[in-house]
């Protein structure tokens, strides 16, 4: 603990690390099923706003806010997922970014919009200013407990029929369908689970940072969540967890670099991904790196196979 604090990892940083680990896992679920969805930031904002409105405007306890945020995101994931998950790769990524942007703009204009519909002055999302003065009621143990439960679910998922179906869908959708797997159902279920996790992270985080505004959940946040998962590695669920930890801690640990912080941060990101393309948690990657470092030659493919 003492050591962690001395390198800049205070309790609040640790709390952010835990939250970003949850976000990393929400990304992991979709990536593991072969869906390059960047909707998580959008669902995070839906969760955050729902949760905060429940705790602030309706005086509910945090756990009600949490469940409420998760439920709303989960329900909204259905009409979004059904049309959008037919898309693949970059198309899916962009469509989901589009979803995030539309959510952002709707939250931004919610009060005006609701005001003009109801004819009364509405003050719920409070536009660009966002909601401030949210009490800080999320505690470290909430986050840790949530993460432990999530981790357990991940482990069980991988040993279940559904988890195997997820992997099959990632590798070959038509072949999976011919095995009797309902591809549409699998993808949408995972999308919902991912949305629910992202929303939970949103609620918990909102009650940590005391203020939320639509700008927090834009393109940058979506890309960061992706980076947690990919830098950590998506071959096991531990990767995104570690990725979330590392990418959150890094800028804080590097504070002493002052104006060179960004350069060091960028270089580290670049070096890690270039030398460990499979992410930080990927034994095969480390052993390859080790052989390379020892200068052992092997029958390397000269030109990559891309198909």
């Amino acid at each position, binding site marked *: 603990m003492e050591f962690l604090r001395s390198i800049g990892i205070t309790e609040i940083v640790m709390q952010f690390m835990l939250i970003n680990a949850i976000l990393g896992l929400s990304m992991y679920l979709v990536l593991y099923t072969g869906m390059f969805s960047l909707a998580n930031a959008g669902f995070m904002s839906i969760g955050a706003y729902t949760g905060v409105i429940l705790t602030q405007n309706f005086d509910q306890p945090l756990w009600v806010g949490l469940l409420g945020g998760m439920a709303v995101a989960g329900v909204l994931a259905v009409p979004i997922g059904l049309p959008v998950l037919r898309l693949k790769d970059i198309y899916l990524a962009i469509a989901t970014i589009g979803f995030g942007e539309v959510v952002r703009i709707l939250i931004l204009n919610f009060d005006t919009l609701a005001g003009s519909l109801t004819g009364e002055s509405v003050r719920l999302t409070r536009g660009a200013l966002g909601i401030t003065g949210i009490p800080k009621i999320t505690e470290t143990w909430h986050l840790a407990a949530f993460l432990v439960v999530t981790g357990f679910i991940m482990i*069980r998922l991988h040993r279940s029929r*559904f988890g195997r179906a997820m992997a*099959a869908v990632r*590798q070959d959708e*038509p*072949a999976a*369908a011919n*095995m*009797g*797997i309902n591809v549409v159902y699998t993808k949408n279920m995972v999308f919902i689970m991912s949305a629910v996790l992202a929303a939970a992270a949103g609620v918990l985080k909102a009650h940590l940072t005391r203020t939320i505004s639509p700008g927090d959940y834009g393109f940058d946040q979506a890309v960061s969540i992706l980076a947690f998962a990919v830098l950590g590695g998506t071959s096991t669920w531990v990767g995104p967890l570690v990725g979330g930890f590392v990418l959150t801690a890094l800028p804080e640990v590097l504070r002493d670099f002052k104006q060179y912080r960004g350069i060091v941060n960028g270089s580290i990101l670049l070096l890690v991904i270039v030398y460990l393309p499979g992410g930080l948690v990927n034994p095969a990657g480390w052993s390859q790196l080790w052989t390379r470092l020892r200068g052992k030659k092997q029958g390397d493919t000269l030109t990559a196979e891309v198909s």
Partner: protein
Amino acid sequence: MLELRSVSRLFGGLQALNQVNMLVPAGKVVGLIGPNGAGKTTLINNISGLDHPTSGEILFNGTPIHMRPPHHIAQLGIARTYQNIRLFGEMTALENLLISQHGRGSASILDALVFTPRYLREERRLRDTASDLLERFHLTQVAKLRAGNLPYGDQRRLEMARALGTQPKLLLLDEPTAGMNPVETEALGEQILRLVREDGLTVLVIEHDMSLIHQVCDEIYVLNFGQIIAQGTPDEIKRNPQVIEAYLGQDEE
């Protein structure tokens, strides 16, 4: 068992299947041959639900299946292999076989979460079936290896085993011996015949290797430009001048 009634499939302007009528009786091996691009793979895609006919009907044991999604069709008991191997390459051979039994299971995520007896029983059953299949297809040695790294021959066998994992009644094989030498081809033929004899399967097989066709088929359909141009026993087909002209060519041997 399987009946196709004037099935047609149009790709833009291209008539890939044109009024195809076909009957695959239970317990038989039916062969489907024809020049490259005749529409054979398209036909199998339509039966297995990856693609849907523009018009016409496909009946399986009397039930129309041509508009059903592929996983329904799989659960009804139709399994297939692919012209280009499509294993789940990043998974082990064993996992491939576990997945193949997906439609046969019913345990939900919740069952898995709290280890219900149903989940435990089902997992045990899946694993037992998988090891049976591994044994039958001589894959026990490689059960724990990544499917994508297996030698080609093992992959072909694994794909067949995986198709059987869905516990089908009808098996569709798309060029199962592509890339095999004659000796390996004959062994595969034996295996197909065993499936029919011992497991009571019905098989529809696409092949270009006429020796296999002769070895296993009870009846053959010949497709050309999306149309059935001939139908009959292997010997009839071998002598059919239209088939020789369009497909077989003059045997030079």
